[in-house]
């Protein structure tokens, strides 16, 4: 997996405007705020002193201190031991809770603005079920008003996925929720690809008067299998071509072995997009809900030796031991998914705890655009149904960073990691907690958004 290359870039973008505002007037306002914020955040180290640090990886430090410098965390520890670097701005955060920026493992941020307004939606292509050559990175709208709303509640990173109407709707991106522009915010393009097998992809399903393939699960599976077979075939054609080309190059001076220059196969963007997944270089996000769909999807993935994580499995309670035996992480839920008619009310609420008890690594996702800010609520609610608190917090921080291949940079308060840090007035998993300040790559995010501006305008 390609590692994020933009992280260090952000640190040099000291005079850039942070995106995510709407009216011209507010753009100017925020620009001024940003400049003033950046003026001290960019150049000077920051010491947050006196708060309760939830490090995620090495416990809680009750009276802690943390240094953000050059966009990284450069020191973490007890307030009595951490020294302020020369020229540091010291912020007293006594009484506050400090934790790493939260990571949402599936969102549609930047792909929609107003759900019901189709012109604002770039969620999924419906012309075919196999669309692996769609790149969410190429639709990602960095200036979306939704992004500041999400990051004001401490969500600093997110996976962007197309909607799940297709079996292979296209490729995900991994973003940071602040930056000068889309390039800077898109930490990893094409980091993963959903493979959806929930039954919802049967959009051609209808009566016998509707005869469009595929209309059944058999059809969807056959179509998918054919796509991967085609990709295998495509790969061997290219391998063959590369071999012949090398062969020709090697023998170009020997008259008797001279062969004609081989013809390159025609490029096929769809099949090309599948190759890194067929080769196990990138992660498939395998979505299913019920046991039967889950087992079918897993067997398809195994047939082509795909590297995968599971998604949803909200109605797979009867086969959780099987899920555990797969030894793959699960993006669970959302836990608000309604249980089946005959099931107890808390069947899905308790799914994260049941997976955890079987040793499965879990993460949460908002599966949303407008409600990304509510990601921590889901983690908190899962604790009321048996998930240990520390695991709930990990499921929106370090576990997600591990699944998405960025654990060396994100997901905990550890020296050397990107300084995505949240300061709140209490427990990050409680709905009542108010986030006071968010730092992304060491910079103070302006704590305002479209909604704050409306509030202030009508509070006068």
């Amino acid at each position, binding site marked *: 997996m390609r590692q994020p290359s933009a992280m260090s870039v952000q640190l040099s973008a000291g005079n850039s405007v942070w995106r995510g505002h709407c009216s011209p007037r507010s753009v100017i306002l925020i620009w001024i705020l940003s400049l003033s914020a950046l003026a001290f955040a960019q150049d000077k180290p920051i010491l947050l002193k006196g708060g309760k640090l939830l490090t995620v990886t090495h416990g809680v430090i009750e009276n802690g201190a943390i240094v953000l410098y050059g966009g990284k965390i450069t020191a973490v520890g007890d307030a009595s031991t951490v020294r302020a670097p020369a020229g540091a701005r010291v912020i007293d955060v006594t009484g506050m809770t400090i934790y790493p920026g939260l990571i949402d493992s599936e969102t549609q941020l930047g792909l929609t603005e107003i759900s019901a307004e189709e012109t604002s939606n770039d*969620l999924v292509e419906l012309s075919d079920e196999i669309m692996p050559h769609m790149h969410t990175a190429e639709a990602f709208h960095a200036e979306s008003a*939704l992004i500041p709303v999400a990051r004001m509640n401490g969500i600093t990173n997110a996976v962007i996925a197309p*909607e799940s109407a297709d079996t292979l709707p296209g490729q995900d991106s991994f973003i940071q929720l602040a930056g000068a522009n889309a390039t800077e915010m898109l930490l990893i393009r094409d980091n993963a690809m959903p493979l959806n097998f929930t039954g*919802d992809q049967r959009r051609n399903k209808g009566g016998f008067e509707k005869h469009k393939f595929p209309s059944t699960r058999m059809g969807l599976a056959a179509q998918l299998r054919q796509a991967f077979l085609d990709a295998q075939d495509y790969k061997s054609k290219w391998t063959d071509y590369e071999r012949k080309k090398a062969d020709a190059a090697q023998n170009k001076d020997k008259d008797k072995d001279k062969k004609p220059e081989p013809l390159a196969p025609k490029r096929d963007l769809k099949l090309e997009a599948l190759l890194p997944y067929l080769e196990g270089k990138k992660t498939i996000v395998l979505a299913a809900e019920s046991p039967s769909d889950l087992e079918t999807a897993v067997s398809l993935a195994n047939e082509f030796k795909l590297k995968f994580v599971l998604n949803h499995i909200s109605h797979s309670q009867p086969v959780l031991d099987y899920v555990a035996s797969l030894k793959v992480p699960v993006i669970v839920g959302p836990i608000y998914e309604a249980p089946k008619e005959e099931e107890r009310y808390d069947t899905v609420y308790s799914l994260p705890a049941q997976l955890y008890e079987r040793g499965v690594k879990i993460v949460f996702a908002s599966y949303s655009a407008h409600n990304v800010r509510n990601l921590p609520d889901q983690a908190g609610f899962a604790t009321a149904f048996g998930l240990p608190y520390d695991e709930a917090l990990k499921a929106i921080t370090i576990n997600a960073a591990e699944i998405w291949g960025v654990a060396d940079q994100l997901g905990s308060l550890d020296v050397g990691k990107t300084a995505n840090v949240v300061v709140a007035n209490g427990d990050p998993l409680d*709905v009542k907690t108010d986030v006071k300040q968010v730092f992304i790559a060491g910079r103070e995010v302006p704590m305002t958004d479209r909604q704050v501006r409306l509030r202030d305008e009508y509070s006068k």
Partner: protein
Amino acid sequence: MRLIPARTLVLYCAWLTMALASAAAFGQSEGTAHHDIVIKNAIVMTVTHGNITNGSIYIKDGKIAAVGETVNAPASATVIDAGGKYLTPGIVDSHSHIALDDDVNEATNPITPQMMMKDAFDYQDKAIYRALAGGVTTSLLLHGSANMIGGQAVVIKHKYGASRDELLFPNAPRSIKFASGENPKRVYGSRDQLPSTRMGNFAVQREALVQAQDYIREWDNYNEKVKRGDKDATPPKHDLKLDALADVLRGKIMVQIHIYRADEMLTEIAMAKEFGYKIRAFHHALEAYKVADQLTANNIAIATFSDWWGYKQEAWDAIPWNATMSTRKGVRVAIKSDSEDYTRRLNQEAAKTMRYGGATEEEALKMITLNPAWIVGVDDRVGSIDVGKDADLVIWDGYPLSTYGVPEKVLIDGDLYFDRSQPGLGTTHYKEGE
């Protein structure tokens, strides 16, 4: 696909109306548990007169007979030890479309006041149970928002497992659902029918109300003739539609309006004045914070979301401070679900108002109990822990105004309907397979 539920909301949000004037007083006569009960050792959150730590409640014949640090109850009373946990009134959801088997919108005409949601009410719908498990004891089931004037609502108690009539809130006042804005104009506009604009919306509404005025006049004339002894007087033809609208104009039905934009709220207020009826509540009301003073002046409550926004154009100016800002301006605010999902955790939604704008614990709790009870018109019977009120109560595992509070036991009319510690569904009246 996860965005879809927010979009379906678009069609649901609507209205309701009526409540069952004809429902007989079922609550007290039958039932399994109208013996004496004492709940002791609870942190009693009364809603109206503060919290009582280590409090007790005495329940007699399904009603709250005493509340305090100690209560006088017969020795024969069943005792429930709350174990120091929180006790609140049952949650009231003032905007719901569950248990209607998707018969939410009769979207064949923009004026359908003769629709009775009771006729679609599916008392066995598991959504009633799932909401009960979230602490909801009373819901207002409304018509959808496809029509400018939708149907008449039904008020239910979540007595899952009881008979249909036992689930109907006895003698609840009637409510009707009006709508406005994007939904009616989209539904009819997409068919090249009236209305397709907001002007069209209000014209259709006004036209219907004018017809109702005429209808009332016809009946008044007839009644006058009969009074004068005119034996030849022939009565006007009964028209279900106009009967319902006439009752709106006569003030016999409470008007619940699906509405988003502030300008439309002002127009609806003007329309109500023009025809002489009162608006009970604006539902959704995401821009109430812009015109809160006018709502207060007209005694109009709101039933709103805590933080939903952006799912449609008219929800673009939604802010999570709406509930608290409106409260500070004197508006009676309810947090409602409009959703089979959110109705299961309205306590969390209410708790968000404590964060956004600093609602007090009591204000937040009121938004899911006494205030929605007022919107439904049953605040004299439910919504707080006061002597004489129905014993609709929730014992919480955890602090209810948080992410962590979940109901442990739910009682309705003093009868235990949900108990988390029970195996299976946790229901005490409904048995699987029945």
